[in-house]
């Protein structure tokens, strides 16, 4: 287990280094000058030069890369070009929205998918199975921003149960905070739950065809008992993979939903930063997301080993 973990940790470091290089130098090539964006069309050339100097943009790219990486190792992400506040603080502030939102959506998705997937697998071919498959098909097909707008129309504009968007802030109380994340979380969770349900169901059905299940049934277990006792654990590998992917996706990919609900999350921060050419913010957030994805993958790898002891001994 330890050796397995060490090898994974090593590849994690290499991935991060490569990612940082790609992110930094790809953004260097993108046309657009943050100083020109800030100062607009009437700026005098010497004003632009003064701002560029203050932002440190007059220095060579490799030097700026080293500064950035060096700072990041110590938790210093630099100062935003446009907002002029430490990037680390900005990210921390946005994570207070994005992280709970991702967890909320993932929680909803798992809470729906596990029972639904198991239920459908247990009654394969029945009306229940057909119903679950039909609904999840729809859930995968509906674009989540469209579903989000539909919910806003019904729950915010017509019923007035929720506000149309915005984040109340945790200082307004956990309840108020969660409430403002509810519609976005549901919108995000719907397609994820659908996918997860289908994966859960097919993984279970696959294991249900294995010899050890037939043996278990022959010992006198019911289909349900065999499923819960033996099939479920063996079906977990693909399910964990999907959950890991979904978490990364929810953290990084909520940009559209954040825009629909005007939530101050990471996605909107990146979006604004890209249009303002606030490169240091874009670089740092993307780096953080890469880090999150890699760490989640690492955690999923570890979880494989936990559910499947055979993996622990592998070289």
């Amino acid at each position: 287990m330890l050796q397995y973990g060490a090898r994974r940790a090593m590849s994690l470091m290499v991935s991060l280094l490569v990612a940082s290089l790609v992110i930094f130098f790809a953004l260097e090539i993108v046309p657009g000058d943050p100083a020109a964006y800030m100062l607009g069309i009437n700026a005098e050339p010497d004003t632009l030069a003064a701002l560029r100097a203050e932002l440190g943009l007059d220095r060579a790219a490799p030097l700026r890369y080293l500064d950035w990486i060096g700072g990041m190792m110590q938790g210093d992400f630099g100062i935003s070009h446009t907002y002029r506040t430490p990037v680390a603080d900005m990210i921390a502030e946005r994570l207070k929205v994005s992280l709970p939102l991702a967890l909320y959506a993932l929680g909803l998705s798992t809470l729906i998918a596990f029972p639904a997937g198991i239920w459908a697998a247990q009654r394969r071919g029945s009306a229940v199975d057909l119903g679950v498959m039909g609904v999840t098909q729809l859930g995968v097909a509906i674009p989540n921003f469209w579903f989000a707008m539909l919910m806003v129309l019904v729950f915010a504009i017509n019923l007035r149960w929720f506000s149309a968007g915005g984040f109340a802030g945790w200082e307004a109380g956990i309840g108020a905070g969660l409430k403002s994340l509810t519609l976005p979380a549901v919108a995000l969770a719907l397609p994820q739950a659908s996918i997860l349900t289908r994966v859960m169901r097919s993984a279970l059905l696959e294991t249900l065809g294995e010899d050890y299940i037939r043996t278990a049934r022959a010992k006198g277990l019911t289909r349900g008992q065999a499923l819960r006792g033996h099939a479920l654990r063996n079906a977990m590998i693909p399910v964990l993979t999907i959950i890991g992917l979904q978490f990364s996706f929810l953290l990084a990919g909520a940009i559209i939903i954040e825009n629909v609900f005007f939530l101050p999350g990471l996605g909107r921060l990146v979006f604004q930063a890209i249009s303002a050419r606030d490169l240091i913010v874009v670089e740092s957030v993307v780096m953080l997301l890469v880090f999150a994805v890699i760490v989640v993958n690492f955690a999923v790898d570890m979880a494989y080993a936990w559910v499947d002891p055979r993996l622990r001994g592998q070289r």
Partner: protein
Amino acid sequence: MKVLAMTALVGAMTFVAPVAQAKSDLVVGLQLEPPHLDPTSAAAGAIDQVLYANVFEGLTRFGPDGSVNPGLAESWDISDDGRVYTFHLRKGVTFHDGSALDAGDVVFTLDRARAEDSQNAQKALFAGIESVEALDDLTARVTLAQPDGGFLFNMAWGDAVIVAPESIESIKQSPVGTGAFRFKGWVQGDRITLERNPDYWGEAARLDSATFKFISDPTAAFAAVMAEDVQAFPFYPAPENLPQFEADPRFQVLVGSTEGETILAMNNALPPLDNPMVRRAVAHAIDRKAIMEGAMFGLGTAIGTHFAPHHPDYVDLMYLSDYDPELSRQLLAEAGMAEGFTTTLKLPPPSYARRGGEIVAAQLRNVGIETEITNLEWAQWLEEVFRGKDFGLTIVSHTEPMDIGIYARPEYYFQYDSPDFQALNAALSTETDPEKRSELLVQMQTRIAEDHVNAYLFQLAVPTVADARLRGLWADAPTQATDLTGVYWEE
């Protein structure tokens, strides 16, 4: 799950209740969030939209009709040669941190804006200043290198608001001004909150607090207004929704004018657009009405030159560029371009440009001019079009007030180089007699219209959607501001 559903329901019920009582707060929706909160070191209109007149004030200030009124300067004397302005500041004005406003703050502000390492986005406003000195606590004297009839106007800009040396260090995060509202808090990405300044020198604001909420997506803006999460949305981004709001008794729709001349800019240095006859052909190929209908849902006022139609000195010069495709083809033929030509059309993000661009392209194709459309983000547009001058045509709205002077800068992106116009502009900048100024402005407008420097499309309109009970909002936008000092709820 049942417990969850119950709490959601209870939460929902408490949320519906507060409607009827007298209100003294206001939530304003804005599409763009300020990058930081210093109006004197960035071009972003969003900064002024939140802070101008509300938190920060200048020596002079814009009225709702664009007039220049006394601000922190109660009055001023101008020397006979028009070079020396002596400003008399109001008594008893304090900044929000409690420090008193004095002439030293004026000296500090103006010297900072014109300093060598200044980061003021409109440094040109201060370029004519030779020296600034404090005569006593409440008197500041500004000496100009030469008379400038536009100086008081310049001092009303958001880029010229008075700031204090005591609070300049942290101005970008916690702005300290002299206005009727003071800054309370900023949740980045979400909202900025202002509260009434109890120590205001003038008539106190009627709202206790005002929150600006940032909603960039037009669909989300619609939902937020419909759900009454925001009670006013100036510069409302989706004009196609306006009829729906107009029909709904809960809302009022104000449509006002702006200082934004929307033009189809032409690269005057790039063949064949360097030929005035070709530019004239382009201008006659454009049907302004179709563009306003198609891109702005009918909002806007057609213009025939680079000047705001609500300005008293505006002259209607549209006859110089009437929609006449036949004439356009004829002009192209005369210019030796009977076969037409191909050029680029680079479009920044606003919908007037993106939607308008498609229509312009179709109208130009009709006379034989093919365009290659490229959509650009603002940062790219600034780099490629504005700085790099790598374009044939582009559509952009020039939102700075009274900016006809840009035509006197041959290096400016459309590269119009006319000694005649430059002479007129030079004469204007030193002319202080109102009548002569007016005459010069008419000549300038006519000059650029006759030279067909650009194709002048329309004056950008500003739609504001607001709660029907809200009073005192400005319909027009003489500067990019949301002046809330006179806003109140009707009982």
